[in-house]
């Protein structure tokens, strides 16, 4: 008997619940979803401007995340100290994406629901790729540190890069190595994550446009730390140049292991080779002579970078590197846009970002329709543990 009435209660309760659901859709009534529908209005004129920084603070790419956060924070601290934007301070919140795209998508929704104006980061193209559709739907402009050309294919008007694409890095590098130095035998060693795969295709196509086919193109898993088997294959082909497409630590290890196998080929690489982690992993002696393609060659190249380096060192007690500089530039672009449109939001802010024209640490930003603002890199060479611009 009791059982009967229990079931009846369950049925009627369910019926009520369904009725309730039919009357109003969940989510529409609650005030949670902040971003939806605010397609380009000028933001509320009071309170701080909320900007989200999404970067890995845990997991294998947490180093990058740390560098980025410092760069962003430095720029924002500076503008806040100078009075903010139209008297409003910028309030930064750091989110840890753990390098995981799924976590990224959840963070994108969190950012939307908590009414953030804009987002800076992430350091990884794959996480940005996952987040971009949600940010687009919620009208939140995002300046990412990713450099994959896949980002451009999304065609989101809210997505911007804070540096050049991988293709820019690699074509500059290939041109220098082939046309200036006259090398002809190239070997590639790339890892299989999105960065490595992007480098593989970008450098290969850059070489191809110069009429050169690599003598070896080896792939290693991104978490592999023993590259010797692949290096063996490369060594047997005797290349003049070994191009590496992998993150800092793995690149450093590759260089170390290549040298311990007695390989003498010139090492060439994109941005990761310019970082302290690369140097410490490879060892200073092994890294000597590595050719680097980077929009930010070092802290002493010009007045702007010297000033940045001084401020960064004062704030964090350690010298900056490329990622910090990139993130700093990205934050500066966002700040300029906010200033220009008086802290607007949504599509208006995105348009303001696109209109920014300023010279930063990496060069002069002038965004195209795809969200790329920087189209060149410089070539440097590592000598005694520091990068110097090549004298060409």
């Amino acid at each position, binding site marked *: 008997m009791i059982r009967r009435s229990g079931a009846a209660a369950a049925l009627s309760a369910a019926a009520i619940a369904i009725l309730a659901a039919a009357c109003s859709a969940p989510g529409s009534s609650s005030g949670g979803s902040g971003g939806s529908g605010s397609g380009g209005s000028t933001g509320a004129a009071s309170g701080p401007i909320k900007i989200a920084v999404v970067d890995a603070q845990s997991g294998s790419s947490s180093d990058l995340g740390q560098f980025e956060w410092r760069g962003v924070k430095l720029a924002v601290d500076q503008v806040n100290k100078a009075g903010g934007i139209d008297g409003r301070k910028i309030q930064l919140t750091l989110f840890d994406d753990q390098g995981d795209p799924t976590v990224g998508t959840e963070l994108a929704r969190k950012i939307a629901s908590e009414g953030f104006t804009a987002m800076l980061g992430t350091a990884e193209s794959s996480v940005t790729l996952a987040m971009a559709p949600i940010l687009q739907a919620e009208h939140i402009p995002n300046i990412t540190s990713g450099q994959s050309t896949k980002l451009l294919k999304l065609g989101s008007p809210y997505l911007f890069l804070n540096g050049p694409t991988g293709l820019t890095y690699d074509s500059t590098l290939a041109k220098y190595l082939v046309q200036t130095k006259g090398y002809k035998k190239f070997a590639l060693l790339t890892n299989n994550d*999105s960065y490595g795969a992007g480098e593989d295709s970008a450098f290969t196509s850059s070489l191809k446009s110069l009429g050169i086919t690599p003598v070896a193109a080896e792939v290693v898993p991104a978490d592999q730390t023993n590259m010797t088997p692949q290096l063996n294959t490369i060594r047997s082909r005797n290349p003049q140049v070994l191009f590496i497409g992998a993150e800092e630590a793995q690149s450093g290890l590759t260089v170390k292991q290549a040298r311990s196998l007695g390989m003498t080929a010139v090492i060439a690489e994109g941005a990761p080779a310019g970082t302290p982690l690369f140097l410490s992993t490879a060892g200073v002696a092994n890294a000597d002579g590595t050719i680097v393609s980077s929009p930010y060659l070092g802290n002493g190249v010009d007045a702007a970078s010297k000033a940045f380096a001084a401020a960064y060192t004062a704030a964090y007690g350690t010298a900056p590197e490329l990622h910090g500089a990139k993130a700093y530039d990205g934050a500066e672009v966002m700040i300029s846009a906010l200033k220009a449109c008086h802290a607007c939001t949504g599509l208006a802010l995105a348009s303001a970002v696109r209109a920014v024209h300023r010279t930063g640490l990496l060069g002069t930003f002038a965004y195209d329709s795809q969200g790329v603002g920087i189209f060149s890199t410089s070539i440097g060479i590592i000598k005694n543990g520091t990068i110097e611009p090549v004298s060409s």
Partner: protein
Amino acid sequence: MNRLFAARRPLGLAALAIVAWVLPYRLNVYWISVADTALLFALLAVGLGLVMGIAGQVNLAQVAFFGVGAYGVGILTTAHGFGFWLAALLAMVAAVCAGLVVGLPALRVQSHYLGIVTLGLAVAFLDWVTNAPVTGGDSGLSGIPTPPLFGVGLSSQYLYYYLELIVLAAGLAFGYFVVRTSLGRRLRAMRDDALAAGAAGAEIRVLRMIAFVLASVYGGAAGVLYAGLIHYIAPETFSIADMFLLLAMVIIGGRQSLWGCVVGAIGLTVAQQELINLAAYAQLGYGMLVVAVVVFAPTGLAGVPSRVRRWRLRRRSGISAAALGSFSGVPSSGRTGAVLEVSGLVMRFRGVIALDRVSLRAEPGEILGIVGPNGSGKTTLFNVISGLYRPSGGRVDLDGRVISGSRPWRISHHGVARTFQHLRLFGNLTVLDNVRMAMDRTRSWWSWRYVFWPVGVWRHERELSRQAGAVLDAFGLAAFAGALPHSLPYGIQRRVEIARAMASAPRLLLLDEPAAGLNGDEQRQLAEIVRAIRASGVTVVLIEHNMGLVMSLCDRVVVLDSGAVIASGVPASVAAQPAVLEAYLGTTTLPSEAS
């Protein structure tokens, strides 16, 4: 107490349903996405619970099933332009195939070996998706479409929540349907004691594969839903770290309870989101929790209420007050006894001869006693007859049909049932379920009904319950139907084991030391039961050390010594033979009664 609880259950479910239904009204955009993720993990965890907790198969490849489902949908929709639901269907098929592949090693290895092999296969899957062009490599697949439902695109997180909720509810319902009925009972019996389950007629190999297929269905479904929810998939989501997190959910929640798995999954997902900026502390926390649960509460959170209840019961009184009923005859099975013919049986273990050309014969309606000193090969003989060992030579026939070399379940289906020297009851099955499990004479492929004809399963279940009730009544065990074997006094456990053996309506019953540990009264009851079994026409072979019982009970006795038959005949004449005296007492110089 128990009935009250049962009555409360629908109310609790209703309350839960209402909470789950109105929950989205209280959640903002972010928390609804957390809820969506939590429900997916819950679905995954239920699958893992089924394979690990219910079937006892270590599976560290559940994330791979998840991945196969997600990538199946991703690849088919983006690269081949399939519609979402067609792609989902094919992805589920792929996930089931993955389940079969991952399950294969379980046919050969178990426990930690299975752990490392399944983990290795998960790593292999991860490696494939990270490299293959078709999966988009490390940068993954984007642009997966939103699943439409009755013309409505489920792009809203809120609508999606309801889709997931319905799938999870259906998954849980199906899971409980399986667990509580024939198939699940066999899986649980296999988990508790694969050997005894095989001897009771369960096809262990098929069941193991079914367990992995079940896990892969839940994993695949979660993957399909994930792809439709996030619209983007990348290898990172299916990493080993996530596998361990999933494992932690299931262990902390309680692997043997599907609700426990759900609670663990939701709890840990929410906790992880709360601690998103303290990931290392979160990891530390759940790691310590897993260790603590495993050491102090192996059944997880779900097991805590019953542990508390048992503890309180134990404090209040010793054993339950229910009394053992009297034995009221063996229910007629309609089957006649079989002739057992053992001829020239030889069993060697790495050079040691355990059975040396043993030949014997047992007729229908006869009680044959097998006696002999320790280590004379009696239990080995039973193990060969019941199919646990494949003999090195000789043969065993049942009614003229060779059964030696067959698998235990097949021999059980031929009508052989046995008990074990050291009780082998299914420890986490109730007495009723122990009996129902052995009573279930269906083959494993019968399980297709779970998908296509559930009504048939229900009917079968009702019939089983009716018959099992009759067996328990007959053996005077009705009062203990709901008890776990280990909570019962030893003498009752012995009787349960005989009842279980008789539930399979055997034609030949092998009893291995049924009187061990029984007091005088219980031994008398045992003799009564065994005689009744003989009277019902079943052939009985029993190993017994209690010579008094053997002498009074057995029609004929076979004496084994060092693996060979040294004497056989009616009890009194066998006891008088010098060879028997020597085997038992050590020498022939023992004075006879006459001297």
